[in-house]
């Protein structure tokens, strides 16, 4: 359960060549790569492990350190809040409003990863729709245009004022 116990794995520079080679092998989607055991036994990689390797290599080739964090299928409120990028009280609020299903283990609330992912996707969709609608309205009502014009007007006045200031500064010594 202690998620931070996993020490990151660092890629060293002299491994890059072989990592690139493995990356090429993993990108060949026609044939599933095989793992060859010490006694020559060949095992075809299952799809899930294949995905893990692809993602791992991607990050290693970008010079990032790797640590594997298992995600429990049952999350604590803390973990769920982290996954949604919100505070724990905000998450509890969502649970109490019935936005995300949960169940209790003793006195502790648990959220299923699947339910949380559904909520996360719905939230993203709601936001994207609202945003698209907002942009549509702003365009329709000419708000962007109006703001651009008033910004130009402001700049014009500012320039005019600056010019006046310059003239008076220049003029000063003659007074």
């Amino acid at each position, binding site marked *: 359960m202690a998620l931070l116990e996993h020490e990151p794995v660092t890629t060293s520079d002299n491994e890059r060549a072989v990592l690139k080679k493995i990356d090429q092998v993993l990108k060949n989607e026609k044939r599933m790569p095989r793992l060859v055991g010490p006694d020559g036994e060949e095992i075809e990689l299952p799809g899930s492990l294949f995905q893990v390797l692809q993602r791992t290599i991607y990050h290693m080739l970008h010079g990032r350190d790797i640590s594997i964090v298992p995600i429990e299928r049952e999350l604590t409120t803390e973990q769920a809040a982290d996954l949604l*990028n919100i505070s724990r009280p905000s998450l509890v609020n969502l649970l109490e409003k019935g936005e995300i299903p949960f169940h209790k283990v003793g006195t502790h609330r648990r959220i299923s990863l699947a339910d949380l992912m559904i909520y996360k996707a719905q*939230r993203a969709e*709601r*936001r*994207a729709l*609202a*945003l698209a*609608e*907002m*942009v549509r*309205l*702003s365009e329709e*009502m000419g*708000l*962007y245009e109006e*703001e*651009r014009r008033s910004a130009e007007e402001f700049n014009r006045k500012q320039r005019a004022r600056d010019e006046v200031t310059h003239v008076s500064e220049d003029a000063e010594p003659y007074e």
Partner: protein
Amino acid sequence: MPPLRAVLDACVLFPASLRDTLLCAADHEIYQVQFTNEILEEVSRNLLKKGISECSNICKPYL
């Protein structure tokens, strides 16, 4: 790395170009947007004054 957070106050939520740009950036998870009901009410109030009632609910999905 903790998420980058920013409180957007009414002054940047009122102008359409600024608001829509900032919210698009938040939508792409460049930073995490935060505001309070009070801020949103202030925005709604001013949008209504301007006669733009349609926009007043825009930020709600982000709360």
